[in-house]
């Protein structure tokens, strides 16, 4: 107990020096917490956006579909399965789809695209596609032969709302299939690449076009949040186990491995920056504590001579370092938390060339922040750990001092 008080008083013996070191710590803590909140927010948004534009959190398919993506890998849903999907609590929404590659052409221009047949009502429980229509409207259940395409795709084809497009492809029965569809809406997506190749028709239309019967290619399922993906997958596995088609359940990570890798890579880069920052601050703490110890050589000598155990001296110096860091940590958090929370409520809208780089990677040009308690206690642990490591050398030096030599110091 006395050690703690001693350590605390020692810290404040040179207020100016301590203040500078604390300031460095405050600065580092502030930066780390705010930037972790930013990175976390941005990554979560990337996942959310991707997931809510394409595969959902879990994609249910026949075995081999992800690699081959042909009509041979199909699922058939019976009433029991539909009921299960509708009632499972983990399922926030589910959307059955048929996907196939066709040639889309208008007059003399054509593009190969992946056309997706969707059930409009169910689709909007999983994806935000129906809300991204900029001209016209989304597919409506009742009307036949409607097609919605990406704005950029429309530009390439020279098509606009009301035009007719020819769909040309290969049916499930291996016959050639072709039919005319009317453009009823144009989509604008944050992912330019996706927008350039997106064509959506109704599920029933595409099943008829491909002579697919009531088969489907995939089911996109939405969980409450990306953290609940695993739980959703398990629930689906149990619930749909008896389905004939022996479905496989892929998480978004398996469907979009490049997204996950990019996030991890980004995180890595960020951790490196944090490591550098913390190391620099750590050296600052080391220097401060070391100087403090060297200045007090005589005093330490007296204490040791009078009977204080070296282990106690070690502890006192060690504690000084931790306290220094703790003060910096507290003030740093006091500044950082409100700042991060404010940004959480007011995301930054990016413009100009920055916005273009965002769109290049398929993100909306907005920087979102998200502060979680795990960020806070991980940063705290990190700072305290650095302070502990920085204290080792000075504390050892202090405890190993020879009282006789120390007493002779001026």
């Amino acid at each position: 107990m006395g050690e703690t008080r001693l350590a605390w008083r020692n810290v404040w013996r040179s207020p100016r020096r301590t203040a500078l070191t604390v300031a460095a710590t405050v600065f580092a803590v502030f930066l780390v917490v705010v930037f972790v909140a930013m990175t976390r927010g941005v990554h979560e948004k990337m996942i959310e956006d991707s997931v809510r534009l394409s595969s959902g959190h879990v994609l249910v398919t026949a075995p081999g579909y992800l690699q081959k993506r042909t009509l041979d890998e199909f699922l058939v849903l019976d009433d029991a399965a539909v009921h299960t999907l509708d009632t499972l609590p983990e399922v926030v929404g589910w959307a059955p789809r048929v996907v196939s590659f066709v040639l889309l052409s208008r007059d003399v221009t054509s593009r190969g695209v992946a056309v997706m047949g969707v059930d409009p009502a169910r689709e909007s429980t999983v994806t935000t596609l129906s809300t991204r229509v900029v001209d016209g409207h989304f597919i409506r259940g009742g009307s036949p032969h409607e097609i919605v395409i990406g704005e950029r795709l429309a530009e390439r084809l020279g098509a606009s709302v009301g035009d007719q497009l020819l769909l040309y492809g290969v049916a499930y029965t291996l016959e050639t299939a072709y039919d005319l569809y009317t453009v009823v809406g144009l989509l604008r997506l944050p992912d330019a690449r996706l927008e350039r190749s997106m064509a959506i028709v109704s599920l029933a239309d595409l099943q008829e076009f491909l002579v697919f019967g009531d088969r489907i290619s995939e089911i996109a399922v939405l969980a409450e949040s990306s953290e609940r993906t695993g739980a959703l997958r398990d629930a689906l596995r149990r619930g749909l186990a008896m389905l004939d088609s022996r479905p496989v359940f892929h998480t978004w990570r398996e469907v979009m491995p490049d997204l996950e890798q990019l996030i991890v890579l980004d995180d890595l880069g960020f951790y490196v920056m944090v490591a550098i920052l913390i190391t620099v601050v750590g050296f600052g703490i080391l220097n401060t504590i070391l100087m403090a110890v060297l200045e007090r050589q005589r005093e330490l000598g007296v204490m040791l001579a009078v009977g204080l155990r070296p282990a106690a001296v070690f502890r006192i110096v060690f504690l000084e370092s931790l306290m220094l860091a703790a003060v910096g940590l507290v003030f740093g958090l006091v500044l950082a938390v409100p700042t991060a929370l404010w940004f959480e409520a007011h995301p930054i809208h990016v413009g100009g060339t920055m916005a273009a780089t965002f769109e290049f990677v398929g993100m909306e040009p907005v920087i979102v922040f998200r502060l979680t308690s795990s960020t806070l206690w991980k940063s705290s642990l990190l700072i305290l750990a650095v302070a502990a490591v920085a204290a080792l050398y000075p504390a050892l030096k202090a405890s190993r001092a020879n009282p006789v030599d120390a007493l002779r110091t001026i």
Partner: protein
Amino acid sequence: MLLRFAWRNLWRNPRRTAIVVVAVSVGIAGSLLSMGVNYGMVDQMVVTAIRTELGHIQVHAAGWEDEPTLQKTLPGGAATVVAALERDPRVRAWTRRVRGDGLVNSPRASAGVRVIGVEGEREGDVSLLREALVAGNWLGAAPRRALLGESLAERLQVELGDKIAVSVQDASGDLTGGGFRVGGLFHTPSSELDRSTLLLGLGEAQVLFALGDAVSEVVVVVHDPDEVEALRTSLAKELGPQVEVRSWAQLEPLLVYMVQSFDMMAWYLYAAVFTAMAFGIANVLLMAVHERTREIGMLRAIGMSRRRVVAMVVLESMWVTGVGLAVGMAVALGATWLLRDGIDLSAFAQGLAAYGVPPRLSPVLRARDFGMPLVIAGVAAGLASLWPALHAARERPAEALRHV
């Protein structure tokens, strides 16, 4: 004189100074290396784009950039363009291509693809597509061969020698097609390219799309990348308004934006790291000044001006930062040299391939990349020394001399 004085002052307490120098070095080396990896990544993206499809300059029929349709072609094998290129010594190589879209069918699957007709020999001089061949043969000898990206072939479940059918809409709007055999498979650093591209011989592509002897584009690579813009302007002037001449930066401005955004990131990184460092430097200077109160008092008493005292302290800060910078930069350069064969990032291969970055990445540091950290470090060191310097200068000599 003052310089030497400042230097000697620093080393009066070698351990303390050494720790600060190490801190500065670590900060610099770490930041430089981080940025080196980032710049390496962007470099790769640019190089991949240029070497796979963009080339340095592309020539198209006027209006192609806004409306890249099959019908916008350069007639007569782009003879006038070729002639102009042959005359210019800045041009290293050129090739012609036909570009269209279509559907490719195999017995098991189908996929939407871009169909590119290339000139066998010339394409090899311009792009890395030929080197990217992992199986089979390049185009040339055998007729009716198609080259597919490895991932495209996987999707279609075809192998070398298998038959595929390509359906397209030709230049007059008719739906037509042709049968080909898979003659070769390629694997480039860009997963996008591998997944969606089919290569045919130029002549066969022209027949398929009913283009006669017209081509869609002429791609040019130069000897010296710095001459791209100059060449572009002179070609544009020479060839007139019926064609568009564009540089890679104009065709893919995003690549340029990425470089700019990394520069901005570098700013923030250096500013943050050096600010943290500045606190440490200020601390050490303050301690040093405090220890020398008597000495400074004496110096002032015998006539050293306030300004020289300030200068002396500032110089100490500059020395410490300078030494740290030198060591840090040397470490960064050394590490860059050691890592010149690349860092193995194969765990992230797919993510990187989406942006055309190969899984072995070498950090890249050029002279211009050192400018920014130098300036920011200098400013940080200067600011760090302000308080200690002013503190030292403000002491009254009489009181300072009496200091214990």
